[in-house]
């Protein structure tokens, strides 16, 4: 049914965010406890930082995707959720600011000995714990029906500070650390960093045990605190997905034990994805108390527009993501060994003359100048004196053409590079 399609998008987005960005958060968590392994603390921190560098921004965008699809297709439910759960969302937002800023800052330090490095690293690690915790308490609140329909109708504190929400938060942090350890072991193994691979293998095994125990404890808490959710998880599709998750978790542990990190990456992601799907199956068809997916959905035209928009976006997104991850997984974006690598293009083309040489360029410059004047007059004339919308569009295009031409003339004036400025004026 049409109203259910965007739910699939939202759940796919949450899964991608948990599996991808969750691991980036987890990498931040490991920088909080980098010691105790064969590799030094500094090497461990550098490894985690370099591993998430090219991908964390793209992974983060899944959160934006989830928010925008939710508020477009289920606006009423979204308004109720964000107003009641303003506190954890605000905490997550602040955590996101700290994490992004800390990452941008940390990349600029050359060595870990500089003053301020530790502060920035702590900030990065703490915000990596805070953000997944806060976001998961939101899921916990929705799951247990603590968000009534309406503008901030629910309790601002107990809606997200309750046993199930807190457990969801802790579980999210544990899952993040577990995923990150598996991925980081895989990255270290690819880069032939034996010590780091060994360290993260042990960390993955430990985190896997912790996450598994927490998941079992979580089921007990849900059974005591949220009978409706428990019923969904202990029967039918919900139960099947819980079993899938448990099996995938065990398989991952075996694969990590055998140092088969590439396959472990996939099965660890599957374990987490099955938990999210299980939650959805247990809660279906209810979004909020007294509000089903169908009731919460926006009108038909909006749903179709979103589905078309997402489909069109996927055509661009999927190949782009495939390119990014294939480059990352093949090590093409790993930190280069030295700053000065051979400069092949410069060597090949150093002798190639610039286009500004010769008599032909003066004629071309005149032609470009004439084009700039014509587009300027046409653009300004159409924008100022014409009325129809098409004339304004044409005028704007003419002005952009004028801007490009004049920029090309001004940024790259005739003459050799050396003459491009008088030393004194």
């Amino acid at each position, binding site marked *: 049914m049409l109203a259910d399609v965007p739910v699939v998008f939202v759940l796919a987005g949450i899964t991608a965010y948990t599996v991808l960005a969750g691991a980036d958060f987890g990498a931040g968590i490991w920088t909080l406890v980098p010691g105790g392994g064969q590799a030094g603390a500094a090497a461990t921190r550098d490894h985690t930082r370099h591993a998430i*560098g*090219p*991908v964390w*921004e*793209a992974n983060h965008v899944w959160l934006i*995707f989830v*928010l*925008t699809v939710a*508020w477009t*297709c289920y*606006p*009423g439910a979204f*308004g*109720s959720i964000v*107003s009641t759960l*303003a506190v954890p969302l*605000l905490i*997550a*937002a*602040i955590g*996101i*600011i*700290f994490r*992004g*800023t800390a990452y941008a800052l940390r990349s*600029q330090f050359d060595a870990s000995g500089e003053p301020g490095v530790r502060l920035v690293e702590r900030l990065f690690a703490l915000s990596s714990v805070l953000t997944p915790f806060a976001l998961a308490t939101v899921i916990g609140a929705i799951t247990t029906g603590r968000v009534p329909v309406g*503008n*901030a109708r629910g309790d*601002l504190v107990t809606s997200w500070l309750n046993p199930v929400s807190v457990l969801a938060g802790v579980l999210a942090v544990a899952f993040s650390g577990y995923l990150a350890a598996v991925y980081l072991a895989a990255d270290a193994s690819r880069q032939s960093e034996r010590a780091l691979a060994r360290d993260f293998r042990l960390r993955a095994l430990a985190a896997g045990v912790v996450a598994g125990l927490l998941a079992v404890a979580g089921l007990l808490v849900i059974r005591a605190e949220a009978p409706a959710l428990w019923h969904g998880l202990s029967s039918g599709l919900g139960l099947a997905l819980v079993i899938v998750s448990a099996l995938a978790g065990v398989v991952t542990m075996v694969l990590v034990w055998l140092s088969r990190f590439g396959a472990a990456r996939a099965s660890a992601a599957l374990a987490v994805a099955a938990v999210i799907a299980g939650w959805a199956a247990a809660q279906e068809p209810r979004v909020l108390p007294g509000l089903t997916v169908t009731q919460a959905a926006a*009108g*038909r*035209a*909006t749903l179709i*527009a979103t589905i078309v928009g997402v489909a069109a*976006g996927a055509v661009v*997104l999927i190949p*782009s*993501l495939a390119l990014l991850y294939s480059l990352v997984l093949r090590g*093409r*974006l790993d930190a*280069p060994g030295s700053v000065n690598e051979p400069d*092949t*293009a*410069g060597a090949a083309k150093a002798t*190639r003359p*610039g286009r500004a040489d010769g008599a032909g360029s003066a004629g071309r410059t005149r032609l470009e100048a004439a084009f700039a004047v014509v587009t300027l007059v046409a653009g300004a004339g159409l*924008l100022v004196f014409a009325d129809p919308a098409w004339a304004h569009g044409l005028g*704007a295009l003419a002005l952009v053409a004028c*801007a490009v031409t*004049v920029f090309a003339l*001004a*940024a*790259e*004036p005739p*003459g050799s*590079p050396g*003459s*491009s*400025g008088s030393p004194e*004026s």
Partner: protein
Amino acid sequence: MLSSLARVVGTSAAGTVTTAVPVDQRYLFEARQMQALSLTVHIPLVCFGIAFPVLVLFAEWRYLHTGDSLYRTLARRWSKIMLALFAVGVVTGTILSFELGLLWPVWMQDFGNVFGLGFTLEGFSFFVEAIFIGIYAYGWDRLSPRLHFASGIPIAVAGVAGSFFVIAVNAWMNHPTGFRLAGGRAVDAHPWSALFANPFFWSEYVHMYFAAYIVAGFLMAGAYAWAILRGRRGRYERTALGITLSAAAVAAPLQVVVGDWAARDVGQAQPVKLAAMEGLATTTRGAAEHLLGWYNGHSVVYGIEIPRLLSLLAFHNPNATVKGLNIVPLADQPPVNVVRFAFQTMVGIGTLLALLGLVYLYLRLRRRQLPTARWFCWAVVAAGPLSVVALIAGWITTEVGRQPWIVYEVMRVDAAVTGAHVIPFGYGALWVVYLGLGGAVWWLLRRFSRVPLEPELNPELSGAHHAG
């Protein structure tokens, strides 16, 4: 389709989702300030998102074309700044997407079905930008030169597309179409036509697009002009100044024409906003334009009056009738002096920037020299921050000028605000966080500017050594 429509209307009529909940208005001020603060932080970063990839790619294209490694160094150093500013833009943009729901849940609830698509599409361009900025910034030396250059093109396209979708939403808030009202909320929504067939959209978008080049260009140029003033006048600094200043200097004079177009669109779609921008109390035939001065509730006092100019500018006819604030009740009028002062600030600074741009282009194209005189460098240094002030003033003009409406003449801001009681706390926290963020960005950019040029580059390229 009819059944789904009836369901939406039915839901609203049954009161399960209702806008009639009395909302605590105490926090309206904080919510507004929070939104304004976040936008003020984010919008200058958007300018870099639009303009910077193009400048970086221009430098890299020059390198591929000429083999001059100076351009490679420029592109490479700029790509690091681009990545850092993008990282900050990612988080400030995320905050905005949280806030749109956190602060204005009723707006989301009642109209999200019309405008939400714009943000969904923006999400995809954000994805593309994030993916390729990762490949581009980490791909130096790792990808072949042509492939590396190609990986930068989607960043530039996504920068343009992202702002396109977001401004489509803002244009819709200013000129809402594509839905029917039932019980105070939008039904029968047609998001495609509402967002992209909106006659108000194009002038606003092109205006912002040119503004992006002005802000990013002058801010970057200001940094190099500062370096030249400090005695670092090597080829590196002069080439960088030439590229960045050319972008800003070309855009600034053309912005005057685009701004005139935008103002006339405002005059047609939002006469009250135009009246507030000009301080026109009553509908007037052959209205005068006032420079400076103060609106005292009836007219502009202490200003310089130019007869009939407003009619001429707004409708190309010195005797045209311009609608005044009196066409709507006082409760539906925006705060005139805020809007008028912001508008005059934008126009005043914009005019100065356009003049500076013309001076530069004259010297550069006719005299064939890069001006580096002290007065000129100081003017460029000042132009950077001034262009940001003009940018923010422009957004204040359009956003405060829309008040008291969040959706123009459909939903008031005070009907959209959240009922959550944590807003003052959030407002305070956000100030602290943004101050920290501002300090961090300042520190980062200073640090970038002090990284010595790469050893592969001939030291004589940079004037740093001469300055000694």
